[in-house]
């Protein structure tokens, strides 16, 4: 029994270096993506992650065209494109009557179109998706260090801007009356979203990066009420999904990145059903109880 469990769960990581790297990489990612996702959910910005992922894509592609498959060039390109879109969209929102979703939508579409045009101008027929889908199985030292740095930086900055950020989630009007920190904190937060997505695109590939940012946080909403606990639960769910996803990918021969996200999806459905905070089963039981 124990031997079977060992073979199932521990052995792959003992035997293979790439499995250990994949595990550490996805853990590190989950640690910072967890809290980030919680803030995105609470601020009703769940779809912003998706938009920003598209805004990053062309920047990384341009980096690839200039410098080849270089981690630093692609990261820098994505960072510049993402932050540019975030800041421009933020500024337009603050200074015009447009809502944030509208300005973000217009800027990320422009950025995406620009990226695709540049790639075709260069006359190269490389598949954008191939370039930009990183693989959790291919994390080298540089990528791991990058992931860890981004994660640490995110958590540090979150700690510093925690109070204004929470206030803006709960009552943005109040924050505006007592402090002028609202705008810079908001822009800083959007930049954190960008670097976490980049981190995710090294580990999972761009499109799946949004999954690791959002799914654990949304699931956490079903388990607890306070922001602090939600961040913790979100991290735990992310880590659980990563570990289970890697093990499933190893034993069942499934593509690793999508498997991790699918496992996060399974955990989301479990939370949706069983979570004490508004889970469907609890709700069903309560209504039955009231009727009785």
């Amino acid at each position, binding site marked *: 029994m124990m031997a079977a469990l060992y073979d199932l769960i521990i052995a792959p990581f003992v035997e293979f270096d*790439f499995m250990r790297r994949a595990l550490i990489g996805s853990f590190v990612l989950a640690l910072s993506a967890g809290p980030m996702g919680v803030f995105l959910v609470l601020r009703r910005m769940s779809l912003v992650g998706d938009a920003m992922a598209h805004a990053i894509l062309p920047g990384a592609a341009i980096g690839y065209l200039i410098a080849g498959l270089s981690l630093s060039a692609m990261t820098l390109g994505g960072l510049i494109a993402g932050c540019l879109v975030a800041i421009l969209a933020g500024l337009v929102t603050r200074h015009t009557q447009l809502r944030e979703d509208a300005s973000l939508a217009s800027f990320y579409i422009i950025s995406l179109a620009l990226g695709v045009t540049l790639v075709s101008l260069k006359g190269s027929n490389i598949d954008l998706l191939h370039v930009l889908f990183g693989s959790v199985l291919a994390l080298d030292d540089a990528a791991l260090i990058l992931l860890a740095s981004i994660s640490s930086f995110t958590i540090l900055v979150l700690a510093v801007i925690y109070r204004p950020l929470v206030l803006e989630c709960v009552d943005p009007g109040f924050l505006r009356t007592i402090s002028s920190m609202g705008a810079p904190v908001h822009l800083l937060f959007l930049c954190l979203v960008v670097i976490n997505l980049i981190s995710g695109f090294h580990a999972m590939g761009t499109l799946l990066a949004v999954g690791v940012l959002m799914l654990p946080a949304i699931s956490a909403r079903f388990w607890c009420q306070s922001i602090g606990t939600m961040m913790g639960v979100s991290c735990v769910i992310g880590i659980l999904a990563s570990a289970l996803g890697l093990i499933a990918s190893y034993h069942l021969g499934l*593509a690793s990145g999508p498997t991790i996200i699918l496992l996060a999806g399974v955990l989301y459905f479990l939370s949706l059903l069983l979570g004490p905070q508004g889970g469907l089963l609890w709700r069903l039981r309560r209504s039955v109880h009231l009727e009785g």
Partner: protein
Amino acid sequence: MRLLRSLFLALCVSIGLWNQPALAQSRSLDEPKIKIVASFSILADFARHIGGDHVEVIDLVGPNGDAHVYQPKPLDVAHLAQARLVILNGLGLEGWFDRLIAASGAKPPLVIASQGSKFLSLKGGAYPAVDQGPYDPHAWQDVANASSYVRAITTALIEADPAARSLYEARSQAYLGELSRLEAEVKAAISAIPRQRRRVITTHDAFGYFAKAYDIDFIAPQGVSTDAEATAQDVAKIIRQIKADKIPAVFLENVSDDRLIRRIGKESGAKIGGKVFSDALSETKGPAGSYIDMMRNNIREFTAALKP
């Protein structure tokens, strides 16, 4: 003035017509070249070496293309209609050709270049094969076979254009000489590698002849489809296989992410081979612009990865 010029031209033409038999041996530059269509880039390279400036060779599947799949273009059908000779590899490589030639309505003379080669059964086994096919079509990977390709093409070319027989024969002899020097070169390079190190894991499936002729083991990675995204299971299998069989080098193609290949190399201790070419040449300026360059490039890459 104008009249004078037309008269002069007419005179030239009629003199040209009179002297036709004498001119046939040394064709003037304006005269159209003999048009040859080859199914893919390696055959086209052979034909260019034999025909020189005397022929115009068109390859249907160009450099870096895959000769197994081919998308017909209208221009190709036009070329086929004008061709004085069509060169095919045969052995089932150009499964698309029958339909193309039927569609074009043309009936140019065909030559199967692999006739007279030593064949390798697709099931493996002895080389040259003793059983009746189906055979591995990539016969040109053995330089001895390439020479027999060249002889077959030369014969067909002389039949199509007997007037230039001496020219074709001379060029063909010179090229066969180059090929036999290449063969000696390949054999010398491989024999410098100890036998137990001549083991390569590769997803290239076109090196069967090369393996048999020059005594290198090419081992296919188990259970890996190179089209889809890699799974942890695939990567683990390849690494285990390399470690268990003590394979010194890995040549992978089509794996979309070279970061993953580098990871496999690092973890298994195998060297990652460079780019090798099997069934298409590179662009003319690339590392495998001609058949001889291709073989030299492959030998260089294999020895670099396998040398102790």
